[in-house]
């Protein structure tokens, strides 16, 4: 039996996946917080606790912006590579993966072995990432997980006149004062973010089938908006937030030292 663990320390959330012979045994997710080292250890403990007994040896690969803080990992691998590998594990037929994270959006084109062909990242500004949703959820005083379902109730989404999340926040406040409903604002945010995602996809070139993952893929309104923008149906993994950690765990399994 080969035991492998992937730990993905993201800008907002950290994720962990434990594999036995390439099968998912346990997953864990928690806020990244300010102490990534402690967060990584807590995720490892949570995964092992779900297992009941500690296996003799586990190969751990870290990924994400805080990968360097996972001191118990055997190595770290770029999140682009891990996302491609993770998507390939869930959907072997996928040619493109869209990963919407808290601080960046990544579009990765991959081959049938899950190897990266090319990619593009939007990380310069909050308007192109899940952070925009967080900012507006805060204005609407709703929980992040309620954002997507709320947006689906919209009848006429607003159009943001700005591409900036800071100005977008002011605009949302103004529109609320004008009597616009929260669903219409939430749906407007999804449309604005989707348009950024769509242009990123177009920059890389869309190859189908295309999958979507990352925390942003927990928002059904955003998925619909991206699907409409690209005029395609997207593949949605059962645990979209876990894909990159899964890829890291797969990388751990396939590296020679793990055998």
């Amino acid at each position, binding site marked *: 039996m080969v035991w492998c663990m992937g730990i993905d320390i993201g800008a907002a959330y950290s994720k962990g996946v434990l594999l036995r012979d390439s099968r998912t045994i346990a997953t864990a997710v928690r806020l990244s917080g*300010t102490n990534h080292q402690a967060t990584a250890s807590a995720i490892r403990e949570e995964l092992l606790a779900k297992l009941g007994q500690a296996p003799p040896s586990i190969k751990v690969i870290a990924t994400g912006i805080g990968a360097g803080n996972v001191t118990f990992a055997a190595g770290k691998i770029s999140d682009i590579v891990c996302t491609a590998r993770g998507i390939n594990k869930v959907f072997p037929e996928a040619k493109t993966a869209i990963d919407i994270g808290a601080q960046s959006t990544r579009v990765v084109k991959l081959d049938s072995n899950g190897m990266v062909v090319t990619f593009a990242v939007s990380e*310069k500004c*909050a308007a192109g990432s899940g*952070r925009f949703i967080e900012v507006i959820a805060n204005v609407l005083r709703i929980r992040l997980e309620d954002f997507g379902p709320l947006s689906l109730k919209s009848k006429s989404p607003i159009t943001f006149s700005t591409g900036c*999340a800071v*100005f977008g926040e002011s605009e949302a406040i103004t529109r609320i004062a004008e009597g616009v409903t929260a669903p219409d604002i939430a749906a407007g945010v999804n449309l604005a973010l989707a348009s950024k995602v769509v242009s990123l996809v177009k920059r890389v070139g869309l190859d189908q089938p295309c999958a979507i993952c990352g925390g942003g893929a927990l928002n059904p309104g955003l998925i619909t908006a991206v699907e409409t923008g690209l005029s395609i149906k997207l593949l949605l993994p059962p645990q979209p937030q876990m894909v990159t950690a899964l890829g890291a765990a797969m990388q751990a399994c396939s590296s020679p030292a793990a055998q």
Partner: protein
Amino acid sequence: MVEQTPLQKAYFAGIDIGSTMTKAVVIDAEGKMLSAIKGPTGPEHRHLANEVMKQALEQAKLKLEEIVYIIATGYGRFNVPFADEQVTELSCHARGVYSLFPGVRTAIDIGGQDAKCFKVNEGKLVDFIMNDKCAAGTGRFLELTASSLGIRLDDLGKLSLQATSPVEISNMCTIFAQQEVVMHLSQGVKIEDIIAGLHHALAERVAALARRLGIEPDVVLTGGVAKNIGMVQAMSQSLGCSLLVPEEPLLTGALGAALLAKDRVTKLVAQGKPLEARQRRLERATFYS
């Protein structure tokens, strides 16, 4: 029958409705500033414009009827119902800055919601470039990041002067920079060093804009951000030249609007037109007094 006012006894006003602050200036025929009022811009421009104008008149001890011509400027300029004319803030700033610094060739105005760089020649706007697409490079950048530090906007300048090794803020995006500030704080970095780093980041962003236009001395810095001594120093360092800063950097737009009002009327009088025509228009606009 409207009494005709001789030009020497005429008064002029400029009102500048910015995204954050509304400013009003009243001048006499010599261009001397008789009053200057600043108030925060609220959601209802119409009421605010009236209020600020009323205060400016009180301070100048004048009645609205005595003001011959009023020019409104700023992004809320169309919400000043009593103005005779609307002029873009660029032209007004150019005129205002020129009156204070006749040698000005480049002016940089960093406001609450945009940054403008413009070339001026003899008080006339020659060319300009501006950023109003995103909060990076505007006063909002400092407003938001200062709030993460729990520091008042007015205190940023003098605190930044105590920095010993300014941090580097690598994010352009205001929201990401705000997160970076929190991260630096959690690592125990001195607040003064963080503030100096923020000033440097904003200065670099605006300087890049100014460089696209071309920098020619004298360079004048205006807008609310120019009240921050740390920003003035950071801008001067990024541009590699010294900067002139008006005593009241918020007022150049309103002052320029008032001076343009005076220029307009002076020209009309020189063409032989009577001053009363203007007076009549103004009377018609005084519905709120």
